[in-house]
């Protein structure tokens, strides 16, 4: 028993070390949003001028809202469509299934630069054009494969006998899915949603090609700013986003069990 406790203690310590690694750049990003120098110059001099400047920067704020909207809608659409597709791929056997599964990788493997250019040309050709709708169309397509791969991984741990048992007890297909299968894969669906959000929210290449003046997203603004006018306003807005999402997530975690206890 003693060994178990020591191992568990080490495990906890390890998680905290990992968190330190993951948050190191985030903390620096936040610190630099309070530093006078726009070039991350030390020594550190405290200021809140970048937050004040951000407040005046309508373009950056508008782009941030666009990013949040698109990421939220992408997440919703992707989790629904992606989970449905994963279920179908798990449950049914048919010719060409392997091919459909392999098709999930081109969107991930082909550098986004090429996908973005391809979308620009194609959307231009068929009259969809550029703008927020085109960006949404692209983001959902980019995030869908991630959701399907993640939900499928979770489905692999699912015992089909459970569905069988429910069916033999008289449940119809819909009841089986909603009462047995969905609750089991829910952690996968949520994880897929987190992926989709991240893919969309940090997506810059495809958004870059599909944005128009006034209809842009935060990463596009950041990339454009780096060329000439990078300011820690970008750090400021990123810091606000991280702090707010952290608060939201921790609040969610208080009321919601991720994956359940056994």
């Amino acid at each position: 028993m003693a060994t178990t406790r020591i191992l568990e203690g080490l495990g906890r310590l390890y998680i905290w070390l990992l968190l330190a690694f993951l948050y190191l750049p985030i903390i620096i990003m936040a610190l630099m949003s309070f530093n006078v120098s726009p070039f991350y110059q030390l020594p550190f001099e405290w200021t809140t001028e970048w937050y004040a400047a951000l407040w005046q920067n309508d373009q950056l704020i508008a782009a941030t809202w666009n990013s949040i909207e698109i990421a939220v809608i992408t997440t919703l659409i992707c989790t629904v469509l992606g989970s449905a597709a994963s279920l179908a791929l798990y449950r049914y056997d048919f010719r060409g299934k392997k091919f459909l599964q392999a098709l999930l990788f081109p969107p991930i493997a082909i550098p986004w630069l090429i996908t973005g250019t391809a979308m620009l040309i194609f959307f231009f050709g068929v009259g969809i054009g550029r703008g927020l709708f085109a960006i949404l169309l692209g983001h959902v397509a980019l995030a869908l494969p991630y959701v399907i791969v993640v939900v499928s991984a979770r489905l692999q741990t699912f015992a089909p006998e459970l569905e069988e048992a429910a069916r033999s007890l008289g449940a119809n297909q819909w009841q089986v899915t909603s009462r047995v299968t969905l609750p089991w894969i829910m952690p996968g669906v949520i994880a897929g949603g987190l992926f989709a959000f991240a893919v969309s929210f940090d997506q810059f290449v495809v958004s870059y090609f599909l944005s128009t003046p006034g209809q842009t997203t935060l990463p596009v603004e950041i990339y454009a700013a780096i060329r000439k006018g990078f300011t820690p306003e970008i750090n400021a807005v990123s810091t606000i986003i991280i702090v707010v999402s952290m608060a939201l997530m921790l609040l969610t975690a208080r009321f919601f069990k991720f994956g359940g206890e056994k």
Partner: protein
Amino acid sequence: MRIPRLTILLTATAVFTSALTLAASAAEVHVLNWKGYGADEPWAIAAFEKATGNKVVNDFFNSEQEMLTKLRTNPGLYDVVMINAAFNDQAMAEKLIQPIDVSKLSNYADISPDKAGSPMLDHDGKVYGVPWVWGLTALAINEKSFDKPPPSIAVMWDAAHKGRVVIRDDAVEAVQFGAIATGQNINDIKDMEAVKAKLTSLMPQIKTFWSSENDWNQMVASNQIDIGTYWSGSADRAKTHFKLPVSLVIPQEGAVAWLDAFSIPVGSKNVEGAEAFINYMIDPTFYVEWVTKVGAPVSANTKAVAALPEDAFNRKVMGDPEVAKRIQFQAPITDAQREAYLALWQQLKVDVK
């Protein structure tokens, strides 16, 4: 702040329509330019809008190729586009830009004759580009690493600065830099092997390849580099605006000069507004304010440069006749040349990996 338009977005049809009616309306001037390059300064836009009643809508590109792609895939969207003179010819040949009636531009007469008469911008007696600003790709030093500015380009190869030299990640610029270092004409490189050998021996000196002004400034702010290729306007801005220890060096071997000009795309729905905007961009009032508030390259308008204080960098250093003798303006490059330069540059980068 505004209300999130979740509902609007979800109504796909509505957005579909808006995407299709993106084309410019009459009272708007759609401008395509680099970001943070004069035309999108909020104070300038406000002054122009107040004076003319036109509304300015800015869009940006990150490379010349991207600018051309945006013109090709958005016919009729833009009214003004900023094109490097070396690309003007290609844009005209593809029928992306139209001739400009310079009699409508009151400031055009003040443009220095060698720029206004540039064969890169005038084709068949018609003006396809209005010269705006010019600058140099020269060297810049970290003042902390040098007691006095080095006179020669050879300092880039000096073992004392090994690992503290930077150069831009751009094939054309790198090859032309090599041409200058080997005493050749940048627009007519005869001995490519010499350029290759010269650059090969430079590679081990290099710390990294920069790609933006921000890269350069960050590296010098944290004292990671001694010297590197840099743009004249950016070096001036780093020094005067950001108070970084940077100064521009125009080596005795010379430097690469470039000229930026404004054009009007074919299909512009507001040619009048476009002319007014271009005229405003070459106006001395705008230029002086741009230099003072932000830092800028050298105006092609002689009156605008003359309006600067006498000791201003753009007047004193860049206006020096001695400098004019040493610099070489970039001429257009064919696609084949560009691809050859890229192949050379990629090979150099792989060899040093």
